């Protein structure tokens, strides 16, 4: 696979300077900082479910964190809140020095597009678009010139070894290939952070290994990553494993010191 892409040079600068409160801003070496994140979902008129119950989490620049925990533990909710797809009920969140919880709702799509890359379990490619068109979708929303977008998209698909699949529709690609397209799409805006929700959940072991090696390679080049997974093998690629239960972080470990049971 090509190594020509510098994944560290993310393009979120266009969003303006960091405006967090003095004295409370996270340290410069943190790409992500969450404090007291709470997420409540209303249930009927009087009740609510606490999906997150005060989560504190930091990720250093270039860090690779795996979020593990049983179903309903709040992993995906936390990922959605970090990814600005969902808003926390309480707490504060900084990404790349910017306090996201202070941003107006209308700015969130720009922030999401420029700072965050998503990889999903079900690949989530647009079925009517071919591989290249899927990859350049964020650039289209950014308003990038078509030729430049095509160039970048092609480069990324070459990087994930899909140079011969540029014009294939998702239905014409294997699961592993689709996930590689999704990775290329996540990288196309050179995001500050990639959020992957069960990226190997629908893949066989060979494809899973390929995908995790690809993500690990990106991380080694400086890309910050958070991966939600049930799979200890997938989690083993991370430098930190954070375990959640009932909306709280209950445990944290370094796989290098304490490898997860496979």
């Amino acid at each position, binding site marked *: 696979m090509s190594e020509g892409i510098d994944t560290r040079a993310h393009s979120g600068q266009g969003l303006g300077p960091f405006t967090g409160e003095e004295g409370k801003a996270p340290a410069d070496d943190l790409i992500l900082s969450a404090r007291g994140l709470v997420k409540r979902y209303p249930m009927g008129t009087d009740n609510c479910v606490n999906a997150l119950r005060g989560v504190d989490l930091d990720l250093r620049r270039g860090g690779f964190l795996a979020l593990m925990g049983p179903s309903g533990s709040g992993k995906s909710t936390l990922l959605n809140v970090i990814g600005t797809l*969902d808003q926390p009920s309480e707490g504060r969140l900084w990404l790349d020095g910017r306090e996201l919880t202070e941003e107006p709702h209308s700015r969130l799509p720009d922030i999401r597009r420029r700072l965050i890359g998503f990889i999903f379990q079900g690949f*989530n490619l647009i*079925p009517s678009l071919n591989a290249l068109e899927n990859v350049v979708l*964020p650039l289209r*929303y950014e308003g990038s010139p078509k030729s430049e977008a095509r160039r970048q998209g092609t480069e990324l698909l070459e990087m994930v070894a899909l140079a011969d699949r540029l014009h294939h529709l998702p239905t014409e690609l294997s699961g592993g290939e689709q996930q590689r397209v999704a990775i290329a799409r996540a990288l196309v805006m050179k995001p500050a952070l990639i959020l992957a929700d069960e990226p190997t959940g629908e893949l066989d072991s060979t494809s899973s290994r390929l995908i995790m090696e690809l993500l690990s390679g990106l991380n080694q080049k400086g890309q910050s990553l958070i991966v939600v997974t049930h799979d200890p093998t997938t989690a083993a690629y991370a430098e930190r494993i954070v375990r959640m239960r009932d909306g709280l972080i209950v445990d944290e470990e370094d796989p290098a010191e304490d490898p997860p049971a496979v």
Partner: protein
Amino acid sequence: MEPLRNLRRRKLRAALTIFGIAIGIFAFTVMGSMAEKINQLVGGALDFWGESISVEPESGGGFGGFFPVSVTEQIEALDGVDFATPSAIVLFGNPEDQAFSFGAPNLVFGNRLSQAWVERVQEQGLEVVEGRFLQPGDRGKIVVGSDLADKEDLEVGSTALVQTREFEVVGILQRSLQFTDAFAFTSLEDAQEILAEQFPLLTTSDVATGVQVYGEPGADLDQLASRIDQLPQVRAESPEELRSQIESGTVIFNLIIFGVALVAIVVGGLSVINTMIMSVSERTREIGIKRAVGAKTRHILAEYIGEAALIGFIGGLTGFAVGWILTLIINDQTRDTGTVLFTMTPRLALGALLFSLVLGAVAGIYPALRAARMNPVQALRSM
């Protein structure tokens, strides 16, 4: 092109919706080109008669009454009158045959062939494309409109049979797409002789069915008309009266067009809304993905409104094309009978296509808003 590809994903549904719009725009095109023909005739009539005063016998003009030609001299004696031309109108064909004919009857206008009148009507657009126009002193000569010439197979030099009398065709009028295409012009005396044969009870042949009065430059024609109106036996119609009378006739056609457009809006619009709502429901997950990769509200709105507008435009283009072709075929079939029913104008073509585009886009607003307001997390969870 993504919107086109999205339509192709649901071919049958898209085709049915497009068909719905096409029917509406087809009706709009056909009715519209008929109304355009009427508007053209009205416009032509106003050009032809709108700058003069039409005077009729008090008992009713055309075939409803006569007055002596001497009325013309009384009118010409009034201040502000440049000249007045008596005319006698007769049917080109047999009155019995005309009873069941479709469209406006072919009429022959017999006018006093003064030099002033000959010059004036040619200025107003009665130009010959073949042969010559009538001249003072002409008798037994006739100039025919192009549709009438086609219908009766007439050319310069041939003989035209008006009721029972034969006329030499001296000129064919240039096609104006107006009422004069179906008319013919001859001398007053010739028309009077036909009238005398047609109405044997007439005691004198020196009658007219109307007088056309032309004012001096700068004369107030409406005021002049009211003065003429005070003369015995006559009823004068001012240009303003004529205008409002003719234009009120077009209201009905405009109402028909409006009605057709309304049906197109309701049927086509509802069908686009229905299709797009289904499309939004089916593509909920896609909307979630697009939101996740940074699509803003306006991107989602533009996508769905664009798709709806495309449905509208394709339907509009189809309906317009079929409608236009049909009007061409019908015009071609009926041209021989001297009846041209439809006129396609650039404004109608542009109107039909723009209307379909806007109809689609407006119908797409509600489904697009539903799509744009979707919660991305819930959208991503949908199957």
